[in-house]
């Protein structure tokens, strides 16, 4: 199933058991909250952080007699995701009721999709290490989010030990897209890579900010193991409560040896749902078998089927932005970047756009890439900024790159200039002028410095003249230090050789 070089498998794919090698088979179910203005089936605002129960109506509180009506924008956003995942969008889809009782589900059924979802049969290509992998997408469907439950009394925030719970219906009914993969993911690390890159894709599509802290992206994983190289599918378990990429990987990494252990001891893996505890890094069964849900799906009679006009679907397809994977390939090709560099720069859309704006100023693409990945990305991370924000505009970074390329400033001086661009919010050229950070290549100016360095280090002069030519580097370094890195290395070399040889 893997794209690229299927024969070459990373060592991390193989789980070494007592009796042989095993491999993981992982599938994901990803829920994404859409950034629509209103909820999936009512006209209440979708908000974050407002006081509890201030965005509700008869529909999302499930008052008697209230009826759902589908949010057209949510359909459009979900279709964008489906098309970006290369899915087929059938001419019609149908909403079903998924029945279960829980206080955060006011109707006691979730309006979801079942056997006629929005989209089916897609795929998503992603990078894991140096390998490009392909994961088939089983389906993409629309549904509504549950409300927020707050467990109070006892140990705050936990179900166990709480005396009662509180329900805030502000979030209830927020549009969700559920993406279900085929079990094509070969390792916990690949699962993490898949999710990170899927999140980037969704952000790129402009349909969700995918804010992790606010739980705008959530996922469950299912995992089974099989003898390495086999094509059978083992009994799978379902893992829940992994709210960071790291926890996802950790949970899968702890579940793998557990299953291998059971199978090697001659046991059978029980199909069950496991809850990941980030504190202990282990999983525990969530509910026993007899409590297994019987959702009693049936077609939602309050909604008519949605007809997907093929012309409209094509319009949506045409409006999709360039997707990250295609952009990586284009950047490598167009700008002569290595695959690895292209993935760093072209993966996240905002950074890619910033980079292209820098290059558009007519500077060397490779040099621009070095600066974008190096100083600029470090600055964003340190300042907690999104690409394109802050005082370093593409024009200013391009100006700095040009100063380096033209030899006006040395690379090390340019790093100073970059720091001062942020502190002083000024143009690079102005900073170079103000702080005298330009490169010194005038031999009249450098001559006395060289003479001074030579005079101050007689023993090194001795070594050099005794044939240890590599000491020359030491002198260059001393001159650079004395000039704050501004000396032109070529001129310094020339002057030093003259002074030492002469």
């Amino acid at each position, binding site marked *: 199933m893997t794209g690229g070089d299927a024969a070459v498998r990373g060592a991390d794919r193989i789980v070494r058991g007592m009796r042989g090698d095993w491999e993981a088979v992982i599938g994901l179910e990803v829920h994404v909250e859409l950034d629509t203005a209103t909820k999936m089936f009512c006209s209440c605002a979708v908000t974050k952080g407002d006081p509890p129960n201030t965005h509700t109506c008869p529909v999302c509180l499930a008052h008697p*007699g*209230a009826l759902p*009506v589908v949010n057209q924008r949510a359909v459009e956003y979900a279709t964008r995701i489906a098309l970006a995942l290369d899915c087929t969008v059938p001419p019609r889809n149908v909403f079903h009721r998924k029945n279960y009782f829980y206080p955060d589900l006011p109707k006691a059924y979730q309006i979801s999709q079942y056997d006629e979802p929005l989209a089916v049969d897609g795929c998503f290509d992603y990078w894991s290490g140096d390998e490009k992998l392909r994961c088939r997408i089983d389906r993409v469907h629309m549904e509504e989010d549950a409300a927020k439950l707050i467990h109070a009394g006892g140990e705050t925030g936990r179900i166990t030990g709480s005396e009662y719970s509180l329900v805030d219906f502000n979030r209830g009914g927020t549009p969700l897209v559920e993406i279900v993969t085929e079990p094509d993911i070969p390792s916990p690390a690949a699962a993490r890579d898949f999710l990170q890159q899927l999140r980037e894709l969704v952000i790129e599509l402009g349909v969700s900010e995918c804010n992790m802290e606010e739980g705008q992206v959530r996922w469950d994983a299912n995992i089974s193991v099989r003898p390495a190289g086999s094509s059978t599918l083992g009994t799978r378990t379902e893992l829940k409560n992994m709210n960071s990429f790291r926890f996802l990987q950790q949970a899968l990494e702890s579940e793998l040896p557990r299953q291998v252990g059971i199978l090697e001891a001659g046991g059978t893996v029980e199909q069950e749902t496991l809850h990941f505890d980030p504190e202990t890094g282990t999983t525990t069964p969530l509910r026993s078998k007899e409590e297994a849900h019987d959702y009693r799906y049936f077609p939602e009679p*309050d909604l008519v089927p949605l007809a997907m006009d093929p012309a409209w679907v094509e319009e949506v397809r045409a409006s999709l932005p360039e997707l990250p994977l295609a952009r990586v390939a284009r950047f490598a090709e167009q700008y002569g970047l290595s695959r690895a560099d292209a993935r760093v720069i072209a993966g996240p859309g905002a950074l890619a756009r910033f980079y292209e704006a820098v290059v558009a100023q007519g500077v060397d693409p490779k040099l621009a890439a070095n600066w974008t990945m190096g100083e600029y990305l470090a600055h964003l991370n340190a300042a907690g900024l999104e690409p394109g924000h802050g005082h370093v505009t593409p024009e200013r970074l391009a100006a700095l790159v040009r100063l380096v390329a033209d030899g006006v400033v040395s690379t090390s001086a340019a790093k100073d200039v970059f720091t001062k661009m942020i502190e002083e919010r000024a143009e690079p050229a102005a900073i170079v002028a103000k702080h005298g950070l330009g490169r010194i290549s005038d031999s009249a100016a450098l001559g006395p410095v060289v003479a001074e360095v030579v005079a101050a280090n007689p023993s090194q002069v001795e070594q050099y003249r005794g044939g240890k030519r590599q000491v020359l580097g030491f002198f260059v370094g001393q001159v650079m230090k004395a000039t704050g890195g501004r000396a032109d290395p070529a001129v310094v070399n020339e002057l030093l050789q003259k002074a030492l040889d002469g």
Partner: protein
Amino acid sequence: MVDTMRLTAREAKKLLVDGEVSSAELTKAYLDRIAAVEDRVHAYILVTADNAAKYSTKVDREMQAMRGPLAGLPIAVKDNMVTEGVTTTCASRILHNYMPVYTATAVRRLWDDHVVMLGKTNLDEFAMGSSTENSGFAVTRNPWDLGTVPGGSSGGSAAAVAAGEALWALGSDTGGSIRQPAALCGVVGMKPTYGLVSRYGLVAFASSLDQIGPLTRSVHDCALLLRHIVGKDPRDATSVVAPAPIELPSAERLDGLRVGIPREYLAAGIEPGVRARFEEAVALIEELGGRCVEVSLPHTEYALPAYYIIAPAEASANLARFDGVRYGYRAADADDVVTMYERTRGEGFGPEVKRRIMIGTYALSAGYYEAYYGRAQRVRTLVRRDFTDVFGEVDLVASPTSPTVAFPVGARAADPLAMYVSDVCTIPANLAGLPALSIPCGLSDGLPVGFQFVGPAFSENRVLDAAHALETALGFTATPSLGGAEAALSQSGGAEAASPTGDAASAPPEGTAS
């Protein structure tokens, strides 16, 4: 001055327009009548007397601003349509104190037309029943014989109109819940084509079958009320734009009208008296120029089983929201949420509602879906096709509305299946989503008999016209005497079975208009 037993809305409007009576006087006449007979009929769960008096006075005072075809006319509303500021109970303990925060679209349209609401009428709990004995609060009596049931589930609305306690009323019909009580109470009742009237604010029983419709004293009134509640509602995705406006009927002849009499409807258990009145009406249709022919709806006998899967299945989900979290009854002192749910619902719902939730849940549960729900949906297709085929040959289908006249209180309460059979002639129109109307066509042993027309989808004007012509020719003018109560109450036995929630049976809800 106002004979509430006979007055039609059309006549009442004329009195208002001619200045012979004010809206306040008209409203007071109904409130007086309610005060006089309600303790025998129990048609209402809540009478909003103060509100009605105040509002009718306001309509009189602001006549210039509050004009309109329905302005100032009093109406009764079945208590499964939510009304902001007026408790809505669905005749269920589980909603005994529920104060709606919004108003059903159909009711809102009438309020916007300055209609005066008299109160909320009784029903079988959550509209599940055919006798109004399943109410959690009181058993409504048939004004023609207080020992008999008014039919159901819109028994309160039908009895209110029949007893002169309302000029007209709104009901809802899922399997016959407007037409069967209309038949048993000797009034006109219509279930429109599915989608014609918004369901927004109608507390759902079976969403793919429910429709709101009028219960009136004449076909003309039926058309008048219907035309003011139809229309696409952006809040109900299953509501549609009516292909043509509802016209007020005027036909006197039925020349050229082809009427099909389905032989399957007459095959099963039609009482002789009902059959006789029906056949007389059929003869009248011929006299009026219509042509009656026998037709076949071959899947009729499967409609009832299909209905008793589809309706409970949808109901089991629709009634899941009554969980004691956001509104309504909550069982006291439950330690955990599951216990709270189970006890709230166990104590809050009556036996018939529980029975249907159980059937529906079972039919949808793992392993049974195809055998029950899936099969019922396919039978539904066959029932629809039957009608499509027949409407290729005839313009309307006619049958008795109910196989029997009103039956004694308690007579069928112990046997759910016997009760379900009451709806054998009405259910197919719900499964097929078709318009159907019942008019009184005479008496059998002193009790009214109903005559039903069913038409193709959106043929309301045709159905109303035919019914109007037949109604005129029939000249049914009898009115009930509100007798027979003592006899019925003494032979009781039914009274207990009819009080599904025990001690709550006679307790009216606390809510009042605000």
